[in-house]
């Protein structure tokens, strides 16, 4: 009876193209291209020959191995598309109110077979399918923020996802994503793998002026018959394409083309490690999320300078037969928890450089609907994982008392998602500068939440 919908991509709707697609008669250098060129003094736009670009790429590749790059911290984000029911994930223990609202979704109590897992000292319990996360919680590495969400009241998946990814609730005019702005504030030029989404297309979170890679599988990052570098002296498809994409007057194609060849080169330089010694022995779930996190772990271990990574998990739109201990929600939750847990194990000694944060566009109705599911709501919860995270706690103000519900139907939002995102970015990635908060979340002057020990 599963009838969830993934909502895995931003909506097709009034375009908010982030990169200008206007055409000019001659290719004009962009800020990014100039920065690259300035640093190396070699990049020459519009020149048909290919060697300068190859040289600059070689320089990039060399840079990705240096000490500063290899020590970089990484923030891994997981977007749970479709709106996770935060109340099914983490709920107050023994809440008569909640049981009254959703009799068909109630789980057995703590200690019972398939029952809630108590999060000690918090008054909350975690869904049994999330048990790998509950272990990390008890170890103090994982924290929960509850009743988190957007101040904007929309219940549209697509608007809410866009608002969360651009970081500007209620404003559709924002042309860049919050993670792209984070990468911009960090200001580390020169490594093509700084920002990465393990998705088929670039998520809105990474739209913007900083280069970002979107790919569903690392194996796809090569030109079919590319025979490598000009040292061999023979022309190759890679070279042919590279000069084609350098000269095109279509800016979007030109920029994406440049990023593409830089990334191909960078990956080629760590190819041996990636397929050899760094190959993971940890078993991940065979799912989109599992596969994405496995590849992100690989790049972190290969020390290519990854700073922000994005993965997604679909199927959270549980309108129908959401289930309690088993069912649609439980299956999604299990995949989420097992993928994260495998990732964390896989990282091994690299864990001290990594923080992971989940997010979802909104929560779901406190009451169950007519089909054993829940409809679009407001507040939900999210998870933050890291060695420095103030774990073992459920942060935020939470109430499902009838009088506290938002519009008499949803969990009210008491924590703005921006205070979580900005707090994690500040304390984990050390986003510099006094004004950084407003740079990342323009128009917002709330307070970043302190979720990491510093």
């Amino acid at each position, binding site marked *: 009876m599963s009838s969830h*919908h*993934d909502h895995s991509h931003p909506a097709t709707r009034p375009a908010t193209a982030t990169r200008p*697609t206007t055409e000019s008669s001659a290719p004009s250098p962009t800020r990014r291209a100039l920065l690259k060129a300035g640093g190396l003094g070699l990049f020459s736009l519009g020149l048909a020959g290919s060697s300068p670009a190859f040289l600059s790429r070689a320089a990039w590749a060399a840079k990705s191995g240096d000490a500063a790059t290899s020590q970089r911290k990484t923030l891994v984000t997981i977007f749970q598309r479709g709106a996770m029911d935060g109340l099914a994930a983490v709920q107050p223990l023994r809440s008569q109110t909640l049981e009254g609202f959703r009799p068909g979704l109630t789980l057995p109590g703590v200690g019972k077979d398939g029952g809630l897992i108590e999060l000690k000292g918090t008054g909350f319990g975690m869904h049994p399918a999330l048990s790998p996360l509950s272990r990390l919680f008890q170890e103090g590495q994982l924290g929960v923020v509850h009743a988190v969400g957007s101040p904007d009241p929309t219940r549209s998946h697509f608007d809410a996802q866009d608002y969360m990814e651009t970081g500007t609730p209620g404003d559709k005019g924002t042309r860049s994503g919050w993670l792209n702005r984070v990468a911009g504030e960090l200001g580390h030029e020169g490594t093509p793998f700084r920002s990465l989404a393990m998705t088929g297309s*670039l998520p809105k979170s990474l739209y913007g002026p900083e280069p970002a890679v979107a790919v569903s599988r690392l194996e796809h990052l090569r030109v*079919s018959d590319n025979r490598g570098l000009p040292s061999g002296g023979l*022309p190759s*498809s890679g070279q042919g394409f590279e000069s084609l994409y350098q000269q*095109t007057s*279509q800016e979007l194609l030109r920029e994406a083309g440049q990023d593409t060849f830089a990334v191909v080169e960078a990956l080629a330089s760590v190819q041996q490690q990636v397929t050899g010694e760094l190959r993971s022995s940890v078993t991940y779930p065979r799912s989109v999320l599992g596969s994405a996190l496995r590849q992100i772990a690989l790049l972190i271990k290969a020390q290519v300078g990854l700073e922000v990574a994005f993965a997604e998990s679909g199927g959270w739109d549980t309108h129908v037969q959401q289930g309690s201990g088993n069912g649609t929600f439980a299956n999604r939750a299990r995949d989420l928890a097992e993928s994260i847990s495998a990732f964390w194990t896989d990282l091994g000694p690299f864990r001290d450089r990594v923080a992971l944060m989940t997010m979802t566009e909104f929560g779901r109705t406190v009451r169950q609907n007519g089909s054993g599911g829940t409809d679009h709501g407001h507040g939900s919860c999210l998870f933050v994982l890291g060695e420095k995270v103030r774990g073992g706690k459920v942060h935020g103000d939470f109430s499902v008392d009838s009088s506290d519900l938002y519009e008499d139907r949803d969990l009210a939002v008491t924590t703005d998602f921006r205070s979580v995102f900005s707090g994690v970015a500040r304390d984990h990635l050390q986003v510099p500068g006094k004004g950084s908060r407003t740079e990342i979340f323009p128009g917002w002057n709330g307070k970043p939440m302190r979720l990491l020990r510093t």
Partner: protein
Amino acid sequence: MISVGVISVWEMMVDEELRELKSSATHLVQWKRQVGRSLVTLVAALSFSAMAAHGSRVSELGKDQGMLQLPYALAGLTEHQAAAHLLDRFAFGARPGDVEAMVDFGLSAWIEGQLEQSFVEKELPKRIATLDALKLSPAELEEEFVNPADYLRMKRREARMQADEGGARSDSQNPDQMRRAALAEIEQSGKRLESVLIDQLFANKMLRGIYSENQLAEVLADFWFNHFNIDAREKEARPFLLSYERDAIRPHVLGNFSELLLATASHPAMLMYLDNARSAVEPGRETTAEFKMRGGPDSLRPERRRSRLGGGRTASTRRVPNLRPATSAAGLNENYARELMELHTLGVDGGYTQADVVEVARALSGWMALRQDGPMRERLERRIASEQVRHYLGFVEREGFFFNAAFHDAEKKSVLGHDLPAGRGIEDGLDVLELLAAHPSTARFVSFKLAQRFVADEPSDALVSQLAQEFTSSGGSTASVLRSLVQSGEFWRSRRQKIKSPVDLVFSSVRALDASVRNPARLGRWLQKLGQPVYRYPAPTGFPETADHWVNTGGLLNRMNFGLEIAQGTPTVRFSLLALVDGREPESVEEGLRVFAKILMPQRDHEATIQALLPALGNRDLPERLGRRLQMADQRAESEDEQMSAETTDSIAYGDFEMAATVGDDGEESVAAMAREPMIVAQGSFEESASLEHLVGLLLGSPEFQRR
């Protein structure tokens, strides 16, 4: 517009049941038109000659029909460039010779012919002749195709029941054995796997998109399906998907929006996909059936009939026999109501509130699907045996659509400021759909999307307003909106400014090469890798239209690799480069680039592309033996024909639904399937890399070819 005379004919085609509903005449007419239309469609689908009979008018009209004002010259385009632009936007790209043919025919006449879908099909009928599922009625489709996972579940249940009854457990097979046994049984019973249905749906889309002469209808079939998107992995919608595209989408692609909207809203595929089939009256509210019971003439009350039969019942127990949803199933599901306004009609900023979502869900409560052999039908027929009584109580049944009067909230509602009076049934939903279709926000939203598809990622407000006005004044006619669009300056000034979607890219490549597609599954694999797995977009939004979604690292590499790969030719996607140049092979790299750039990208400026490629490739003579090699390649392809049968049965991208269904039903992409994706590995010497195939691959992967 449909004349009154025609309507009355359709009225006669519709049986009496709707007359029972006393309501405003307009939506009844609408509804009947819809029903009549779907009957007509079905008949048309049964015979492909219908299309040929319908059209041949264009050839009579001939050149310079001259009704349309096409301001391409003002945009600085020649007639040939204008024709090439039209082929990029109103078709899936130009085949060799198409530009010249259109200029001969006349641009206006060509557009009118496309708007009327009146071109006689040449290649298409024989290409899709083997797709037999297209000829089956919705009921036959339901009968013929089986979901193996469902079948298996049924078998397991039977086995369990046998075991419970103490029957022999001798046949306790392991799951794999059971699965194989089930597949064998399905085959023996003469039924076919549901995956075949989807494979045929997919093949039909590919072959029509490539070979249909009525290209605009194909572009729009893609557009409207995407607008009313359904994910084929949603297993309850899947059995109805072929019928959904054929019967609900295709008949209306150039027609009236409100008919299209009603056709999608009442199709089982949509009712299942967006959960309206599970939305029922909230407990405590009166249903249509109950309301009718309260007020209707005694003669039709089921209790009367019953009391005559069973005796002893008094008037005080006059209630509809227990037809209300079970307590656990009672209540609204807002999913469809919300997406109907957000995605199908008004747009997210179209001016509706959460309260409107609830009211629309109430108005549409009881709109359900009725399977041929489902428990719902059985229950209904058992509890209210008389068809006449069912009609009286407000139940409506039509080709898989079912209005369940016992699930419909009959109390008063208010949608977008319009009151819907109490005591009605299906009219509530019909009213709402009509209200939404005629709403100014809908005109704007739909016009914006059409402009985005046909003109630019960010069309001007002026153009969108102009189209919205046309949409409204034409009563929602897509053909009228496109007529207005093609006469705008903005359309002609937007040449080369759109980036092809993967579907555009794959179709236009096959068309540019004049290739013969023997097995569309190969195209499916390419589309999946390029990021547009057709029929498998996971959200009701459908695939995005704008370039920023398609152009990114990874995405571009896949396009380049696709160019190189398709240019090699495969046994199932075949073409002859030599035939494209009439056997005259180019003698140098430069000549090769010039000749093929002209064929593949007619009426474009190729200089930048050639000048960028020449230094990398070196302008040298193509090896003498090239011609021989190409001939050999042609022969090789012939001999590979036998291998084709192997590849024909292989439908990785679109045939693995049953696998997905048995593996876990969680809709996850099959990682294993992607890993099987072959990569072309470096092979051969430089001479081969500079071969024509290589040049063609570079051109197809070039930035210029990505534009339309």
